[in-house]
């Protein structure tokens, strides 16, 4: 199946453009999440063998499980939290991949002059830019979700083993029967894509910078907003700009809240919370700004030859 996805037979420009992005960004799209997944699984196994126990939020797994039993709160939520937790690191790393891919998306092709080769082909700048945007905001996250699922399934198995080895409880009762794969899948997909929608203006800003930056798009992408924030602080004594940026990240639902109450996480609640943030007008104002920046990328690429 993978080979039919990654080979081309005949005229299929959109597929060819996506494949081109895949070949170009293999490291960000595939290698990075694969390595992180491998490391997470490796360290899970190591900690299982050494028996030192994985500690989460300052407490060992034993304590969490004991907690669940003694409070007689839904042990499903606690177990789910334990299973979801290791995959968070994957999503953190992948978000960096997204930033770097966006920053290089329209810059590298000018730097290595390959833009002239791409432009010698009958594909429009609009198609190119939209495929690049979709690579960052859809392809990278989707593949990350695939790897997250692998981590979560592994975590479940390891947790079950851990319970079977270290406690008297039945691994089936305590762990496996408490896992709702549908809810996990939903919690992998919904919050991630809602969050991407929230930060879309920032991702498209990175792409816009990469479309016109002459030297380092990375520096420009961060220095310009910092200067703007400093300017605002000095001359207006306010931090409105920083607040707006921050508001894109402080999401409507958070794992932390549940941790503090010791309730574990209810994945369905979290997904619903994220979905309800879709009615926030500021989300859609940001999306319009993102669309304007993408239109800017297309216009600039039309004029771009090489740096």
């Amino acid at each position, binding site marked *: 199946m993978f080979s039919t996805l990654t080979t081309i037979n005949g*005229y299929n420009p959109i597929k060819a453009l996506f*494949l*081109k992005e895949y*070949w170009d960004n293999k490291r960000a799209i595939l290698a990075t999440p694969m390595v992180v997944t491998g490391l997470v699984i490796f360290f899970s196994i190591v900690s299982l063998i050494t028996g030192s126990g994985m500690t989460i939020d300052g407490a060992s797994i034993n304590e969490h499980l004991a907690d669940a039993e003694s409070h007689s709160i839904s042990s499903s939520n606690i177990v789910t939290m334990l299973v979801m937790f290791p995959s968070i690191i994957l999503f953190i790393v992948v978000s960096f991949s997204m930033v770097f891919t966006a920053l290089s998306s329209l810059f590298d092709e000018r730097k290595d*002059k390959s833009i002239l080769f791409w*432009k*010698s082909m009958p594909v429009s700048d609009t198609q190119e830019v939209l495929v690049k945007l979709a690579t960052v905001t859809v392809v990278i996250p989707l593949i990350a979700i695939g790897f997250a699922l692998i981590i979560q399934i592994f975590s479940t198995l390891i947790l079950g083993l851990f319970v079977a080895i270290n406690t008297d409880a039945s691994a089936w009762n305590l762990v496996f029967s408490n896992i709702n794969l549908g809810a996990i899948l939903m919690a992998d997909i919904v919050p991630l894509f809602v969050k991407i929608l929230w930060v879309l203006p920032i991702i498209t800003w990175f792409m816009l910078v990469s479309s016109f930056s002459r030297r380092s798009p990375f520096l420009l992408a961060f220095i310009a907003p910092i200067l703007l924030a400093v300017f605002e602080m000095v001359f207006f004594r306010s931090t409105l700009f920083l607040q707006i940026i921050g508001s894109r990240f402080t999401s409507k639902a958070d794992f932390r809240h549940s941790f503090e109450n010791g309730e574990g996480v209810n994945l369905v609640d979290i997904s619903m919370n994220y979905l309800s943030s879709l009615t926030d007008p500021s989300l859609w104002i940001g999306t319009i700004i993102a669309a304007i920046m993408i239109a800017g990328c297309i216009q600039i690429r039309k*004029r771009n030859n090489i740096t």
Partner: protein
Amino acid sequence: MTNYISAKNLNKSFGKFQALSNVNVSINKGQIVGLIGSNGAGKTTLINAILGLCSYEGELNVLGYDPHTQRDQLMKEVCFISDVATLPGWIKVREAVQFVEGVHPNFNREKALGLLKQTSIPMDKKVSKLSKGMIVQLHLALIMAIDAKILVLDEPTLGLDIMYRKTFYDQLLGDYFDEERTIIITTHQVDEIENILTDVIFIRDGKIMYDASMEETLSTWKVLDPNKDSIDEARALAPYREMTSLGRTSFVFKGKDSASLKEFGTVSRLSLSDLFVTLMSGEQS
């Protein structure tokens, strides 16, 4: 004759610099046109305008398209290899073939693979691991497998060794060119292309200085190597230019009959590079 490219009063400026000024060009089906000029003369700007890679003022029609706004349509029928190596280093040979097959409706994979088979290019290598000559060969194989009406080559043999340059043009003429196609070539190495051209355009300071068919050029311009004792008589015939090299004097004549010149010495054709120098230095003095 079917017109493929027509430019009328084409202008392009970068700030105060006038890269193209009132360029009028007409290129037809079946021509091989040499676009010749020094660095910064406007060759690449003119080519970029034709390929839809830059904006311009004036009228430009390429195969019925407005290149700047319809580049993606135009590229189905126009191919180009630009003067800089443009295949990205990260792409594998196999992937490059697949990509072009995917985005180009007129690409013939068998033909590309056949051309690649004649070379020593490994399919699994990345472009960054190929030699400069191999990269040009790969690019040419990809482009020659596209059934296009216009092929634009901007300094195609730059940086290639002499052995490969020759096969490059042989292959271009033998395997690719036919009456249905038009090729535009820019190069510094005028001598290596003059035998394959049908038409020649000289450009300087953004202006077209000369635009004629090779046939016309050869019948109009001649060099006379006069016999020692008839140098003064030859000079009296009002040559266009007098050339001295290694102590030998020769004269460039414009529009003179070979027969009338023959009595003063040996008449030969004027090479394009000498014509270029003749026209450009004549203008300057």
